[in-house]
């Protein structure tokens, strides 16, 4: 009889440790969200390199367990493996390393060949500051509003870096929001691109860009670094690494380092970043009214950024000669979802003129958007940190 009682007790204790005994509605909701992300990545191929780690991370972060038992498995439990990996997000180590890889894979030629396109990358940052003001109006504190606003930059690492400094408690919501909307760029942008342009504007053909010399390509990241260091020093961790990566690529003498930065290094960091950001969305900390508001403002910021880019091109066209006009369909590329938003310019442009190749022109504002959002992050940090 005693043995039976002991067995029952043991089974009860065992049951208390299982996920079934500790599951709450929030966990189930978040697990479904994680599965949805994995579905989007596998079935729709929306940003699979990001959505698979994030989606799987959401599953890991929302496996219900007995928190009182001090199992050291949760991402918020000090000393756990996930907590140690998460420090790269909290302390802001991962985003600059991602930027190093991005720099090593980015070709700035299209921007150097037609430098006025850089201003489109600046105009798209209206999304960041528009969302910042909206977030303040909705009752967020200034530092939280800054973190939410940065979603409009459409740049995951920048959003994570800024939020880890300004409002770490919003990290999960901001990161998930930024990466979700980046994946949904093909859905969000085209309607606004069509709405804000005329048929005549959509078929504008731009001149083939000039050839860029190797010397220009090598000097560009060095000048960029110096400019950043002197004008926006708070943007240095991101832009410094971006330009360093680009110099590794363009110098022509550090091929091995460039290949490591744009290959194994960025892949490793992407896995760690995606997984831990996903795991940070534990139902208890994530499912809140606040998170929903972050998502809503995030969507608005993407829309504002897209519209600002397109309208700015139309404004520029007022001052440009007939043969120098810019196709406003590349205005959406000012948001730094590289290269997705540039591909959308190409895709929408070809719907109206199949012989009009906008991709090479759209890459200019696209890479300018990366620089612009990092500068915006630096400015926000300068004011609010």
């Amino acid at each position, binding site marked *: 009889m005693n043995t039976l009682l002991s067995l029952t007790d043991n089974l009860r204790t065992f049951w208390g440790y299982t996920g079934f005994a500790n599951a709450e509605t929030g966990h189930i909701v978040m697990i479904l969200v994680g599965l949805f992300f994995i579905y989007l990545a596998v079935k729709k191929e929306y940003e699979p390199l990001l959505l698979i780690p994030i989606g799987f991370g959401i599953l890991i972060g929302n496996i219900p367990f007995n928190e009182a038992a001090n199992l050291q498995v949760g991402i918020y439990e000090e000393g756990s493996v996930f907590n140690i990996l998460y420090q790269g997000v909290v302390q802001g180590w991962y985003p600059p390393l991602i930027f190093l890889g991005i720099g090593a894979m980015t070709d700035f030629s299209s921007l150097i060949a037609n430098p006025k396109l*850089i201003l489109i990358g*600046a105009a798209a*940052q209206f999304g960041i*500051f528009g969302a*910042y003001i909206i977030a*303040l109006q909705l009752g967020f504190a200034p530092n939280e509003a800054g973190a939410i606003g940065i979603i409009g930059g459409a740049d995951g690492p920048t959003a994570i870096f800024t939020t880890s400094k300004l409002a770490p408690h919003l990290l999960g919501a901001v990161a998930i929001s930024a990466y979700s909307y980046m994946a949904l760029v093909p859905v969000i942008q085209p309607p606004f691109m069509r709405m804000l342009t005329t048929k005549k504007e959509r078929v504008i053909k731009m001149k083939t860009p000039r050839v*860029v*010399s190797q010397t220009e390509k090598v000097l560009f990241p060095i000048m960029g670094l110096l*400019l950043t260091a002197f004008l*926006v020093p708070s943007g240095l961790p991101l832009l410094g690494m971006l330009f360093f990566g680009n110099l590794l690529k363009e110098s022509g003498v550090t091929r091995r380092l460039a290949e490591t930065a744009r290959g194994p290094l960025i892949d490793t960091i992407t896995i760690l970043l995606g997984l831990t950001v996903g795991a940070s969305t534990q139902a208890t900390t994530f499912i809140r009214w606040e998170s929903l508001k972050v998502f809503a403002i995030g969507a608005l910021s993407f829309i504002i950024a897209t519209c600002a880019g397109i309208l700015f091109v139309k404004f520029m066209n007022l001052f440009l000669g007939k043969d120098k006009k810019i196709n406003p369909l590349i205005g959406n590329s000012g948001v730094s979802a590289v290269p997705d938003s540039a591909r959308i310019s190409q895709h929408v442009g070809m719907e109206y003129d199949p012989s009009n190749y906008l991709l090479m022109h759209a890459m200019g504002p696209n890479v300018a958007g990366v620089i612009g959002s990092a500068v915006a992050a630096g400015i926000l940090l300068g004011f609010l940190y």
Partner: protein
Amino acid sequence: MTPTIQTALFIAVVGLAGIFVFMSFFYLIILALDKYLPYQEEKPVEEFIEEISEEEESEE
């Protein structure tokens, strides 16, 4: 208008102006690079060999 919104507007205006100034500097730098270090087509190897052999002949 609350002081918080006033501050926010100030940050937004200064921030956007800052980004445009930063990008304008970049624009000027690229223009300068193009002006002072324009692209020059690389000469084919054969042309170099011809030039060198011509120089050698003239020295002789």
